């Protein structure tokens, strides 16, 4: 399918329809070989005394290198990955560089992997950063190096082939040497090497890429001493902090507000009604000199809500509705072979309906954004995951051209997809508050700060889903046929005849050798907006698929690892990862038993997501009181060429922990009101529940694939499979809670 022509980047900002967008994401794994040009000019240039050969590298007169990241650093380690590639190709040390976030610029900083899928934006998502930068950053650094070496050769009047570089020092066989900084003037006058003339290092000569000590994380020193700056930390002269009261019943409107008490609080500058729409909740914002006063003012409001437009969504009723839908034929997403109606002699029919809840992202830094409206434009300070999309959304809200909105990129205190809201909700809300403030004569930059309660209740959840599966097994335990129906919501308004790959990914692409497979989709048009959560559709499809594979294997008493092996015989990459995790976890030897009354077992799961294959083995203990503990998770990963092994291990450890939180989390609604508010009733994994995690990487020379998300999907099914191995009961509804069913 060609989707390149289907871009709709219009003056009112891009609003791709969901098919175009999701088609783009679906093409991710095909796009890793993207060979994008990085040149933005015919020659290098000197800007503010620095050599600027392209949009990604700047080198000053001391030879100090600034690496420009078009991606957000939200904890996934991308800044360090970029630094590693730049240092490798430039032959510099970690002390000779820093990494800074780029401004929003769809032309210079387009995400090449998303662009190859037809989605021409600057954005950080789909675990694409290193897959894209593998080409762009290496070429950017290598071309800078080539130009600097040529400049040195010209200066010294020696052949460039007689030069070498170590630790940022150029040297010649004659003994001449000088730092990169000495050649920036003359390098700036040289033509840029043609794209196909840029030569990249051979893997055999790497000193940093793939090495455990190749590059420590560049962002960590400032993250242990409080100096790292997040949006929450920015304070500008004259800035006001806005704290908002959202309608308890989602999408209700403000009927009236009594602001008397709030306005009496010293430091409260304004109380403003903020109209909501189908994207932002709106409500009443209190603007004050500091966060506490704004919150106190917000809490002092008496608001009467017009609930006529309010949602009546109720998650229990929704599950009932979903289950009804799931019992009917849906849109065909994939269909091969023939469905078998009845179980053959000695076979079995498994009817399995799964109910999986809405989930909130709840990063440690609640959503916030700082907006300054100037005379001829506007500026945004944000940990920006959706750079040019948010830029366009903000411009639209203000009636400006996108280029009139500039963005300062900051660290994000986590995101997990929340800061890539497809509808730019919290950015629009901050902008609308600043706009209405200005209309009311309240000037100055406005920082919107959601309290934790606004964040948990802030919608754009991982969609709740019902999965209705019917699997017919032959007497020997093989699958005669499998029908898998998914009911859920789309991230975008979606015609019912279109497949939503954000919902369906990992169903019809199941790698297992199953001849007869039918996958169907039902889209529900609900009130509650949804979006991608770290690992997106795989958060639910991996759970369902991998739990069912164990259930299928159990019917014929087959070992779940061996059963998977047999079904993956045609997929050597999967087999390698699966065998690696089984070997490291000692799958074939018995698990040491626990103390009296404790029962222990292993569970296994494997999943490809974002181009990366991850398998995990969880060791779980069920105690006498039916509480459980995940003791250890072994992980095996094939993410192509390893760039930073320590960061990969760290991301997979984090993915396991993120997945484990799902065992306890759910967002529920009653009458349009979200029932969860804070970490007391929307819990997150804590250290006392966190398993030991050990990660093993397959040595690969294929281009790098994603790592921020792929650690998540196998964790829950591996844990559930271990629990089922202990209890003999298969789990159909999440969250599991603190206890297993006896």
């Amino acid at each position: 399918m060609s989707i390149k022509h289907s871009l709709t980047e219009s003056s009112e900002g891009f609003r791709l329809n969901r098919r175009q967008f999701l088609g783009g994401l679906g093409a991710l794994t095909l796009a890793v070989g993207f060979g994008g040009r990085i040149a933005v000019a015919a020659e290098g240039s000197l800007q503010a005394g620095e050599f600027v050969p392209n949009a990604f590298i700047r080198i000053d007169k001391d030879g100090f290198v600034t690496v420009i990241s078009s991606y957000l650093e939200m904890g996934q380690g991308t800044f360090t990955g970029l630094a590693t590639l730049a240092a490798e190709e430039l032959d510099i040390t970690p002390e000779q560089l820093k990494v800074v976030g780029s401004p929003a610029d769809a032309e210079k900083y387009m995400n090449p992997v998303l662009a190859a899928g037809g989605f021409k934006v600057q954005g950080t998502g789909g675990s694409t950063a290193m897959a894209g930068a593998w080409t762009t950053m290496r070429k950017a650094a290598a071309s800078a190096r080539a130009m600097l070496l040529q400049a040195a050769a010209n200066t010294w009047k020696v052949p460039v082939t007689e030069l070498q570089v170590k630790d940022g020092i150029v040297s010649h066989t004659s003994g001449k040497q000088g730092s990169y900084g000495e050649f920036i003037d003359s390098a700036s006058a040289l033509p840029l090497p043609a794209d196909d003339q840029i030569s990249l290092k051979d893997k055999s000569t790497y000193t940093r890429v793939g090495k455990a000590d190749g590059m420590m994380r560049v962002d960590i020193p400032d993250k242990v001493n409080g100096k790292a700056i997040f949006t929450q930390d920015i304070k500008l002269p004259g800035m006001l902090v806005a704290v908002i009261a959202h309608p308890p019943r989602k999408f209700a409107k403000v009927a009236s507000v009594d602001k008397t008490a709030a306005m009496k609080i010293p430091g409260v500058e304004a109380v403003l009604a903020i109209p909501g729409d189908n994207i932002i909740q709106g409500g009443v914002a209190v603007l004050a000199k500091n966060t506490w006063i704004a919150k106190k003012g917000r809490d002092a409001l008496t608001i009467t809500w017009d609930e006529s437009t309010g949602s009546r969504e109720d998650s229990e009723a929704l599950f009932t509705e979903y289950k009804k839908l799931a019992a009917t034929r849906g849109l065909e997403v994939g269909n091969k072979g023939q469905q078998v109606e009845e179980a053959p002699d000695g076979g079995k029919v498994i009817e399995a309906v799964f109910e999986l809840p809405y989930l909130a992202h709840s990063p440690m830094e609640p959503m916030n954004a700082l907006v300054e409206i100037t005379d001829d434009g506007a500026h945004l300070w944000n940990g920006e995951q959706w750079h040019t999309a948010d830029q366009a959304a903000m411009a639209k809200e203000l009636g400006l051209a996108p280029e009139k909105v500039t963005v300062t990129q900051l660290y994000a205190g986590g995101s997990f997809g929340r800061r890539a809201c497809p509808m730019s909700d919290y950015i629009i809300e901050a902008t609308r508050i600043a706009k209405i403030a200005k209309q009311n004569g309240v000037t100055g930059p406005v920082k919107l700060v959601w309290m934790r309660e606004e964040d948990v209740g802030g919608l754009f959840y991982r969609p709740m889903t019902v999965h209705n599966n019917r699997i017919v097994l032959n007497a020997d335990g093989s699958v005669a046929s499998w029908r898998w129906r998914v009911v859920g919501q789309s991230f975008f308004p979606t015609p019912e005849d279109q497949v939503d790959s954000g919902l369906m990914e990992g169903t019809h692409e199941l790698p297992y050798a199953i001849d007869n497979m039918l996958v169907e989709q039902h889209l529900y048009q609900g009130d509650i907006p949804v979006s991608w959560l770290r690992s997106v559709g795989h958060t639910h499809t991996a759970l369902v698929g991998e739990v069912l594979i164990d259930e299928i294997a159990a019917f014929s008493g087959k070992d779940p690892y061996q059963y998977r092996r047999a079904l993956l015989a045609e997929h050597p990459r999967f087999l390698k990862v699966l065998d690696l995790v089984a070997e490291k976890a000692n799958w074939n030897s018995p698990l040491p038993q626990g103390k009296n009354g404790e029962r222990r077992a292993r569970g296994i799961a494997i999943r490809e997501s974002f181009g990366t294959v991850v398998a995990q083995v969880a060791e779980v203990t069920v105690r006498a009181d039916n509480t459980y503990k995940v003791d250890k998770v072994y992980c095996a990963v094939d993410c192509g060429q390893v760039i930073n092994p320590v960061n990969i291990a760290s991301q997979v450890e984090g993915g396991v922990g993120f997945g484990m939180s799902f065992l306890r989390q759910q967002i529920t609604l009653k009458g349009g009101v979200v029932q969860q508010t804070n970490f007391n009733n929307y819990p997150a994994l804590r250290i006392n529940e966190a398993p030991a995690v050990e990660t093993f990487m397959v040595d690969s020379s294929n281009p790098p694939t994603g790592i921020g998300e792929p650690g998540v999907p196998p964790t829950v099914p591996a844990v559930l499979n271990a629990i089922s191995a202990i209890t003999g009961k298969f789990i159909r509804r999440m969250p599991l809670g603190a206890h297993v069913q006896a």
Partner: protein
Amino acid sequence: MIKLTINGQPQTFEGDAEMPLLWYLRDEKDMTGTKFGCGMALCGACTVHIDGRPARSCMTPMRSVDGASISTIEAAEEDRIGAAVQAAWIEEQAPQCGYCQSGQVMSAIALLKEKPSPTDEDIDAAMSGNICRCAAYPRIRQAIHRAAREIK
């Protein structure tokens, strides 16, 4: 008037005595290392030391710190144990997004001051009030053990 010291510096405060210490540090003193996470002492991102004990500054009103000695992440490196914890955090490459880490580091320093050789159970007890949504827990645990070895 409320008198207190912050990282050894005497301070006075005459504003709203109900304001939590967190917002005084962040919005009045521009010490933004201490983070806002939940506002209800549920996540630990705002952990500081009050008279040497770890405390959640988001639920600590200013009226309760009259005469108190506060130390924050900004002064951690001046403390022998604080510096060891920070070095171990870097050595183990613990942080990911980093937003919770000021609180994690402050809780770990308090733990090591009380128990210089903590067991895993001690770590669970002292650190379970600090949420890390990136789930950097295995590295945080290793970093505490490493710091314990370093301060011996």
